[in-house]
């Protein structure tokens, strides 16, 4: 496999893992915050919400997935451009909106769906560019 194909392949794998972990993480956070309720914007309200999030198992499950996302993200940007990896990760918005409709039963308008489609097309354009445009970095030892 050529260097560029290998670079594209491993970046694609990491981006897909990022999308899965971010989607599951955000979904769990949303569920957890629905269980906790709206946060009051006062000192006591914020501290109370912080305490509630610490004791919520669904929030911790969300954090677990977001740690997985962070690891995949850190690994991907160690070899690929930030301006390539992060837009590529936006592919997850389509999945996320679908999950919000199917699992959380949220209403999503046609305009919002169109916005999501534009995001996905934009990400596809970015995906056609070279993943790394900076000088090669040393391998960690």
């Amino acid at each position, binding site marked *: 496999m050529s260097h560029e194909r290998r670079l594209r392949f491993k970046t694609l794998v990491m981006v897909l893992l990022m999308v899965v972990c971010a989607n599951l993480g*955000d*979904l769990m*956070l*949303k569920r957890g*915050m629905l269980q906790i*309720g*709206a*946060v009051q*914007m006062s000192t006591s309200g914020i501290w109370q*919400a*912080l305490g509630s999030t610490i004791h919520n198992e669904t*929030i911790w499950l969300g954090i677990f997935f*977001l740690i997985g996302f962070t690891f995949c*993200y*850190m*690994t991907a*940007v*160690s*070899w690929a*451009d*930030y*301006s*390539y990896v*992060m*837009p590529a990760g*936006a592919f997850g*918005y389509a999945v*996320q*909106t679908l999950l*919000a*409709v199917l699992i*959380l039963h*949220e209403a*999503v*308008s046609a*305009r*919002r769906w*169109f*916005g*999501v*489609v*534009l*995001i*996905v*097309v*934009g*990400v*596809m*354009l*970015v*995906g*056609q*560019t070279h993943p790394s*445009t*900076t000088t090669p*970095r*040393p*391998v*960690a*030892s």
Partner: protein
Amino acid sequence: MRLILMLVFFICCSTGGEIAMTYGMKQVGEPESFRPGALLRFIKKAISSSWIWLAVPLLAASFYSLLILLSWAPLSVVIPASAFNYVLGTFGAKYLLREQVSPKRWMGVIMVGIGVTLVLLA
């Protein structure tokens, strides 16, 4: 109004944290392989980077502001709205990380930005 302010705070912390983390990871370099030993060495080198430790509090602040946003608005509004990170992040990538951002990449980012705006206005 409080939703917009919290969104701005979230986007600034998130983009700043990601730029700092990327800068740190470029210094660390990619893992030599995906075997456990190599990954442990990779993680050890990453957590010894001061840039990563600059990124952590910024990302923690963005995480907590995301939690607050999620308690205020539906998931299908909050998450796509945070895609503004891509526009700011691309500027950061070009001028701080010195990445070459081609017209096609810019076009993609702008489409993402328009998509985000439509999502916010919906």
